[in-house]
């Protein structure tokens, strides 16, 4: 039996703007296995980020349930949700979302401060993580002093601070050039392979295709289809052939 980390049951999300109701998610059912690399793909406005927010407990669904590690997220208390965000998930965003008032190192230590990890331990771990993402020589720079690719590396190091079992990435390469984007994808893929972290990434980026185990195509708030890696490779091959 597969080990399911994330399961959504008929997840609906509506946004109300005055009398208008926009149905951003229209009943999403997906199951994601531990250790998978999943890409959520779809046109702009299809609901990828909305789904990302539901899975990461960054917003509540209007209807339906999200289960993480078998836990129904809607049954958690405020404190449990905070602990969930702190320990179980690492978030990576398109716009990095680093805290500008903290250095690269300070950004990486913050989730560990929230987790109550002692000073010395968290400082060492932050150094180790920043080294791993290739920023050993930029640790004490503020985000403003770093390039986009470097900022995203800080965000990745920060996402890993409390050894999450899931990394959620919302268009992590959208603000980066092709080569830097490739490096970021490789870095995330390495985590997936070496540490067994489950990766769920919303993306437009076709470079993500060949590292994904499965691709979930989202359209108009619905799962249009789910493709496996072997099906993808054929399509990538076709795309490659035309070039």
């Amino acid at each position, binding site marked *: 039996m597969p080990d399911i980390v994330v399961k959504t049951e008929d997840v609906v999300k509506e946004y109300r703007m005055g009398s208008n109701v926009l149905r951003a998610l229209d009943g999403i059912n997906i199951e994601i296995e531990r250790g998978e690399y999943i890409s959520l793909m779809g046109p702009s406005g299809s609901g990828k980020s909305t789904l990302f927010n539901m899975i990461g407990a960054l917003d509540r669904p209007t209807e339906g349930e999200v289960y993480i590690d*078998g836990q129904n997220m809607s049954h958690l208390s405020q404190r449990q949700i*905070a602990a969930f965000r702190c320990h179980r998930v690492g978030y990576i965003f398109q716009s990095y979302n680093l805290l500008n008032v903290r250095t690269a190192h300070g950004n990486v230590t913050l989730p560990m401060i929230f987790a109550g990890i002692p000073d010395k331990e968290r400082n060492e771990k932050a150094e180790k993580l920043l080294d791993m993402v290739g920023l050993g020589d930029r640790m004490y720079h503020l985000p403003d002093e770093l390039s986009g690719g470097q900022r995203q590396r800080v965000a990745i190091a920060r996402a890993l601070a409390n050894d999450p079992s899931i990394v959620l990435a919302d268009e992590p390469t959208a603000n980066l050039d092709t080569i830097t984007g490739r490096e970021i994808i490789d870095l995330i893929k390495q985590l997936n392979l070496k540490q067994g972290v489950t990766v769920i990434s919303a993306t437009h980026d076709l470079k993500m295709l060949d590292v994904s185990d499965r691709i979930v195509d989202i359209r108009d708030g619905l799962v249009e289809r789910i493709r496996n890696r072997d099906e993808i490779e054929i399509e990538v091959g076709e795309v490659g052939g035309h070039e």
Partner: protein
Amino acid sequence: MQQQTPIEEQIDLPFVESLRISFQSLKIRFGRSIITTAGITLGIAFLVSVWTNNEIELALQESGRSSAITNLDEAAEQGISTKDIWLIIMSLIVCVVGIANSMLMAVTERFREIGTMKCLGALDGFVVRLFLLESGFQGFAGALIGALIGLLGAVILGLKNYGLDLFFYFPLLPAQHENGAFQLGVLLLILFGCILGMILAIIGSSFPAWRAAKLPPAEAMRTEV
């Protein structure tokens, strides 16, 4: 599903940790912090100068050395003219609105930061405490400086009007005059100004911070200023 790992409860941060984070934030955003603080300073400077000026006039009236400009009959009767009352109320309103506005601006700019901290595991209470500490410190520092500036302004004006007599009759401490008029004294006014500035800064910042902290992080992070 196979696995049912219970999700633990998030812990509270020790107070020193919050203090450290808030000071660091003030330090790095020093330029912006100064501007916000300047809003508080101006409000309190205006308030304290108007009030101190009023105290000085009252004290010198009582001493019989009032400047000729004042309507003596009215002053003797009421101790404080309607014009002065109006000015005092106006200065209070300007001060409240000014401080609330500068704090609100400063918090609104940081909605994304609040959302991000919540993604990393911050409790709502931590976010509020962070803003409480930052704004309390800013409020106190800004108000103290403002009160001193306001005092200086009123003293200069008093020197111009009354010359060195000002220092003989300076209403530093609370006083009860023979005709029953009561004066609070400048010292208490300054203290009041500092406390008011701090309270206004704290309310002006913690209230919007609390509202932002209650939002789901996805919404807080959407806010672009």
